[in-house]
């Protein structure tokens, strides 16, 4: 057993980080705040060219990597605040259900909310297809995306996650791939994005606390600030370990069997338990760290200029995808 983040995975993360810094820096992404299409088609294609959506596809079309590697990449996408339907497009590509998804030539959304009432769908107006994984029924692919009768929300929470509202989703053709597998991978990678948001909020807080001077010294020398930052690290490290463990289980059926035996549940339950737990802790870490980082930044943290509100808002959007924290914790109680 060697559960460290491997050198190849660190290199992968650095590669993605460098690509984002060069091709999709924050100021470039922020230029589209409030735009109908959160990320330009050529930027999306650049992500496709980098291989972000094809990581688990076999070579030569993909890179033949596992979900652990993919989680490392998605953490970087979260850290970099990359907008757009990242998880849906990855799922469509990895399951081979929409041509062009792997290359970033199409944008595929994923919708998992199942509460009654008006339906809100991220990015809907610019999607090529929408994967619907709500409720317990089979997964459906709606193609073209059901834009008829949909109204764009004027004031979405996240300026980089445009929203459309419609009364109900139509029924479409079933997806061949198992809904459970899609749901599982989607929840896991959403959790990985959240770890990226949690980590970014921590980094911004620590950088600011080292620089910002009050009472003649950096505010990071005050224990009140130190302890907030330490708690942020605890949240992101614990959530990251959970996400990576769930990813390793997903990548290796033998490990699932061994862990399930130790935990006294079935392999299927073990996978579910690990992913749902990871999503819960990652959601919490992302939202709580963004909040704490805003507090460390004081008044500046409450401004539009400082990007912390973007991390907070994206974290809130992602918290509602797949299991919400409330649903996740309720589902996990059965494993106690």
């Amino acid at each position: 057993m060697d559960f460290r983040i491997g050198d190849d995975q660190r290199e992968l993360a650095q590669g993605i980080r460098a690509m984002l810094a060069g091709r999709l820096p924050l100021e470039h992404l922020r230029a589209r705040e409030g735009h109908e299409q959160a990320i330009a088609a050529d930027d999306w294609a650049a992500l496709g060219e980098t291989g972000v959506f094809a990581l688990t596809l076999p070579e030569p079309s993909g890179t033949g990597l596992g979900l652990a590697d993919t989680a490392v990449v998605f953490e970087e996408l979260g850290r970099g605040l990359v907008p757009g339907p990242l998880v849906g497009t990855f799922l469509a590509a990895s399951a081979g259900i929409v041509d062009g998804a792997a290359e970033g030539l199409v944008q595929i959304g994923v919708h998992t909310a199942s509460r009654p009432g008006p339906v809100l769908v991220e990015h809907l107006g610019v999607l090529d297809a929408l994967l619907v994984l709500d409720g317990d029924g089979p997964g459906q692919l709606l193609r073209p995306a059901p834009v008829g009768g949909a109204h764009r929300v004027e004031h979405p929470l996240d300026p980089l996650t445009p929203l459309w509202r419609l009364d109900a989703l139509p029924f479409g053709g079933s997806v061949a791939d198992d809904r459970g597998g899609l749901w599982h991978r989607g929840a896991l990678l959403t959790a990985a994005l959240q770890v990226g948001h949690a980590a970014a909020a921590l980094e911004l807080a620590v950088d600011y606390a080292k620089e910002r001077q009050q009472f003649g010294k950096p505010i990071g020398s005050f224990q009140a600030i130190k302890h907030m930052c330490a708690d942020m690290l605890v949240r992101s490290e614990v959530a990251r370990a959970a996400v990576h463990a769930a990813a390793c289980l997903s990548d290796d059926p033998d490990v699932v069997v061994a862990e399930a035996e130790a935990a006294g549940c079935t392999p299927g339950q073990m996978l579910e338990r690990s992913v749902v737990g990871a999503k819960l802790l990652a959601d919490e870490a992302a939202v709580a760290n963004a909040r704490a980082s805003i507090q460390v930044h004081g008044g500046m943290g409450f401004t539009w200029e400082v990007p912390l509100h973007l991390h907070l808002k994206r974290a809130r959007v992602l918290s509602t995808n797949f299991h919400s924290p409330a649903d996740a914790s309720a589902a996990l109680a059965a494993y106690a």
Partner: protein
Amino acid sequence: MDLRYTAAEQNFRSDLRSWLAATLPGVGAPPPHDDWPARRAYDLHWQRLLFDAGYAGVDWPSEGGGRGASPVEQLIFKEECERAGAPYVGVNFVGLLHAGPTIIAEGTPAQKERYLPAILRGEEVWCQGFSEPDAGSDLASLRTRAVRDGEDYVVTGSKIWTSHAEVADYCELLVRTGDAGNRGISWLIMPMDTPGIEIRPLRTIEGTTEFAELFLNEVRVPVANRVGEENDGWRVTMVTLSFERGTAFVGELLECIRLLGEVRGIADRLGLLGDEGLVRRIGHLVAVFDALWALTKRNVSEAAQTGIPGIGGSVFKLSFSEHAQALGDLAVEVLDRAALCADPLDAPDGGALGNAEQLHNWFKSISLTIAAGTSQVQRNIVAERILGLPRAR
């Protein structure tokens, strides 16, 4: 990133599991908490069984007489022992985890020969004389004085939080031999039958005896009992404190996972699982304890490669101690008035309710954010050493 155990690790696990299954039925139930002579006998007997089976000092290097197991095997050892319900390390804690490893690293050949085998064979018990009434988190300010007189140090002062003092044969003792600060400290082996040692047990908030105060009045400790150079005791101590390689609290974590299942069972029997808020708190703790188990594996993997658990140790302790408290609070809420009673009660549907064990764990959890570095000190460590925030206090 790989959670797959190697064939050798799996063999280690299955051999250990077989041995535990064959051995534990003959071990018997642990004695009452406050019966220290019986606890000493029970824990030393268990240590002897481990020794005879080749599992004594599983984490000690082979040159110290230990098994020299890898950190991953140490993790498996603790996991299997906890899952099988094996006795805890108990009175052997200081010998096996602090004094022994220190003597292995810093002791003379004669000291190693004299003290190490007796720890491994379960013949001698050690206690720890580090903290003082005025030197807690700021351990380096300790004031117990050792003055050289011929071939002896004459030691005067007081120590506190000394577990197992009543039944210990030796004490690993930090004394001031030089100037103030961490460069004037020495590390001594003090036989507990030396004249001038007064032991005064402290009662915990649970009402039990767990640790004691030591009052030292001109206690003569041979200079030959010093480990390391004079005034180098702080460094010697740091060697000890970093010994556990990512596996600290493994038993406690697995115990919390078991207790959480029991809390859910109690809530079920009391008809409380319709309470959504309660159910969510249970589910949340499932996620946290699972994640901390994953973090343990990460820390152990780090230790296996680098020899130290990396940044994970403090991170683990901060999260674990606070969530163990959340579990304790949840348990006493579920038990409601049954948690007012430390005597075992029956559930309405018959059978033991489990209130006594949950109440004990609630008390124990309260100590976790204080012992082995308070959460406040841990946060300073994380902020300064990991995040690089400035050290001005």
